[in-house]
């Protein structure tokens, strides 16, 4: 089976994709912090920020409907916070609008970051920014074996569904699910042991080598300066 649900657009060839992962991690984090600090009622700043994000999204060549679809993910929290808005009096709705706009901006930035960077490069960037080695190794393992285990889950689910008619009682259902998860866990443990033997015999030293890592280049300098200018403009104007 083929899965392309994560970093689906990370292999495109836009200028944003060519940046070093560290540049993007630092730059986009700065953008998120800036977006978080916009006050309610400053319409101009929100407008400028959305304009800037639209330009970046355009440069990145990621399909617009994908980006918009992803931003719907915050809906549950938006609704929960919406429950509270009427209690805030006259300021309530302006405050709520600012909250929704801010979190939408942050999500847009995150979507751009993760869809312009291949995961291998992202974890390498994290490592070079000082993230602990074990954590980065964990992330790499997760990425590699997620697809294998997702296949396993789908096969198990198919097997379960083809062996039953209708729905059993809740308790029986839960017991089946518990056994399925237990089976999956035992298989994961065994897979990990086999992997470890295989890795040792291939000379695993604790680092995951990456072919042709990106270097910090003039593109990165340009991107960082644009972001810094924008952040400074938003904060001080």
């Amino acid at each position: 089976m083929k899965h392309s649900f994560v970093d689906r657009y990370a292999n495109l060839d836009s200028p944003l994709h060519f940046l070093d992962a560290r540049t993007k991690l630092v730059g986009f984090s700065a953008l998120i912090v800036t977006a978080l600090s916009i006050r309610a009622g400053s319409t101009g700043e929100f407008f400028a920020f959305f304009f800037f994000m639209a330009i970046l999204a355009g440069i990145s060549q990621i399909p617009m409907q994908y980006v918009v679809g992803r931003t719907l993910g915050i809906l549950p929290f938006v609704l929960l916070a919406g429950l509270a808005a009427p209690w805030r009096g006259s300021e309530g709705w302006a405050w709520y609008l600012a909250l929704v706009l801010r979190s939408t901006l942050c999500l847009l930035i995150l979507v751009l970051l993760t869809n312009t960077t291949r995961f291998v490069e992202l974890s390498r960037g994290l490592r070079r920014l000082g993230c602990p080695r074990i954590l980065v190794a964990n992330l790499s393992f997760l990425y590699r074996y997620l697809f294998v285990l997702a296949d396993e889950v789908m096969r198990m689910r198919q097997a379960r569904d083809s062996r039953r008619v209708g729905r059993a009682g809740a308790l029986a259902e839960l017991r089946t699910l518990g056994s399925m998860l237990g089976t999956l866990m035992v298989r994961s443990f065994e897979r990990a042991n086999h992997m470890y033997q295989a890795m040792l015999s291939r000379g695993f030293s604790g680092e995951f080598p990456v072919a042709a890592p990106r270097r910090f280049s003039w593109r990165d300098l340009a991107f960082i300066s644009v972001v810094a200018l924008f952040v400074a403009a938003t904060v001080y104007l």
Partner: protein
Amino acid sequence: MRFLWLNPAGYSLQCPRMHIPDGFLANRIAISLDVVSGASILYAVRRLKLELSARVIPIMGVLSAFIFAAQMLNFPIFGGTSGHLLGGALLGIVLSPMAGLLTMATVIIAQALFLQDGGLIALGANIFNMGAVTVFSGYVLFRLLGAPGKPGKHLPLTGFIAGWISVEIGAAACALELGLSGAVPLRVGLPAMTGYHAVIGVVEGALTAGVLSFLARVRPDLLKRDFSPRFGFPDWVGGAVLVAIPLGLLALAGSSNLPDPLQALLSRSLVPGAHQESLLSSDRFTDLYRVLLYLALVAIVGAAYLASRFVRSRGGRS
């Protein structure tokens, strides 16, 4: 839109729905919890380096993929919502809390990066709620209720309680953070989150119990290995410092009219203008008070570091 890719029937509300997006937490709270979670990850890394053989690295890696994949298996509850395993308590019990914490942190980071599920600045809060709190509370409950060394008759019951309560505490922490940020008032958020997760948590408890009793039946060696006293005194101290104290500060701030300690922890915010919008104004605190609380934060991190420094290796394992 999480897991839409495996759910052709369409979007159904996923439930333990605790991934806080960016923008809902006040910057102070988000950044304080980033610091706390960062410290707990560093503590766990240091602890594991001292004690574990390299063999455990792939185990943690594959189990984080396991948690990710296990969350695909939904249990429909009512009205289109469905619950799935959160997995914190299970990992804490099967893997030991330190490895469990790192594994959950990996899962939560990956969910933010793959699925944009939970924000980037809010990552610390999410790791705290769904990683540190569920792993440690699940493990502690399991150890307190069960007879150590004898995974027997009570295993399903203790597993159920550990899973259920751990989700409940995580949800309460989430509601407290949202409440203190002024995003969702406590009197709305706390009953909503805890009430909802009290129902959802039954699924978590049942699945934790189910997996544990399955493991006890099929591969008891995996469980027995982990009943060994690997969670020693320094870890109780480290867990208390990194989980119980921030949790206590949150609860104290949420439940009383006393000044909010966590809010004042990072003396004002790091970003200009960010503190303006909270309902809980921090103007009534004296500067002295703020300085003291800032020192408390530094002390938390420092204590965690020192505790990890003085931990001695207890010989090989695995």
